[in-house]
């Protein structure tokens, strides 16, 4: 062959290189690549974890901010409700007190009226008695005695009125 090309030697070189390539792949290339892949996976996982945690923290922060913003509104709402309730209660109590006062006044009026009627009734009867007694005395003839009796009867009736009052 020209240029000393020898197929046997070409095959020998091929055989030699194939063995070398195979051994280099298993001894050096694959383990180093595997380690590098493992390391990048580890760092990717770390980065992912950090990202997840950051996102969680962001979410928590947003939640708390929203809740803080709502707190003022909620406080206002509750205060209004309480004030409204207090006003209603006050109105109710005032209404009740007024009704009670009116009932008491009505009752007092009724009592006073009844008492007055009673007193007027009692006084008429006494006057009728006194007039009867005086007429009786006159009829019986002793004016002085009748007069005395009239006075004492009148005095007695006045005392009784005072006592009743």
């Amino acid at each position, binding site marked *: 062959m020209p240029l000393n*090309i020898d197929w046997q030697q070409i095959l*020998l070189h091929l055989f*030699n290189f194939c063995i*070398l390539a195979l051994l280099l*792949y298993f001894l*050096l290339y694959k383990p180093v690549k595997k380690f*590098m892949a493992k390391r990048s996976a580890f760092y990717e996982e770390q980065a992912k974890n950090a990202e997840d945690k950051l996102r969680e923290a962001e979410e928590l922060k947003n939640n708390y901010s929203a809740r803080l913003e709502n707190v003022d509104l909620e406080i206002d709402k509750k205060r209004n409700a309480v004030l409204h309730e207090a006003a209603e209660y006050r109105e109710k109590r005032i209404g009740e007190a007024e009704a009670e006062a009116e009932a008491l006044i009505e009752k007092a009026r009724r009592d006073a009226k009844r008492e007055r009627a009673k007193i007027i009734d009692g006084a008429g009867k006494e006057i009728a008695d006194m007039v009867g007694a005086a007429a009786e005395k006159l009829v019986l003839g002793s004016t002085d005695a009748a007069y005395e009796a009239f006075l004492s009867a009148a005095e007695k009736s006045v005392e009784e009125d005072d006592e009743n009052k």
Partner: protein
Amino acid sequence: MKKKTIAVAAVVALIMAALLIGIIFTDSDKESADISETMQDAVLHENDKIDFFGLEVNPGFISALIVSAAIIAFAAIVRIFVIPRFKLKPGKFQMFLECIVSFFDGIAKQNSPHKNGFLGAYVFAAGIYIFVSTLFELIGIQWISVGGGSVTLGAPLSDINAAIALGFLSYFVILIGGIAANGLRGVGRTLKDFSLPISMSFRLFGALLSGLLVTELVYHYMALSFVLPVLVAVLFTLLHALIQTYVLIMLTSLFYGEVSEPHVKKQKNKNKKTETAVSE
């Protein structure tokens, strides 16, 4: 500043003196007669075959075996003692290993975004093999040839058989990628570049051989054997080790990416129809 100038001047003077001594004490006529034979041997290895279990092989194959053994031993030591102690925060050596793997893996992913698992492993092995085997010629290990003479083991890829093996294997890997990604269409795409294995093989061979020839040429003349080999051998070898590694893995990755790219159906007819419908 003065000290620095004096030191530079001294080094330059030494180099010039060494070159002058070389020129004066060497016989150029005698050496020029041998150089063509040396060059021919460097290319064809007709007179420096080495016995390998009964087979007569080129020195490049012995170099390939030594390089492979060294790389495998290094990989095994790293696998047993270093990789189990890898840390999340890498040390210098771990960083170095990770950088190498990431570099080849990155090239595979960058040039072949659709299918690159196998390609990454292949370019890693090929890249390391080309780089280390090219640097191997710096050591200059001596071996005994079949004829009983001494042979300096050069870079494995300066042997055309090694270059052809790697070129064709790269093409085969590209073909496999095409089949895995696109089936028969992938085969068609790969076969379209039928000259690729030859061009890759001869590019590798040519680059490595030229380095070898330049080094041979420099070493052959006594006059050039002072100081100059330090620059020529080390710098040239380092440079073309890097360049050839990069070129082969880039070419393989690019073609692999091209053939493994998913097929997109052309929608010319549909577009034309819609255009006419719109115009109507």
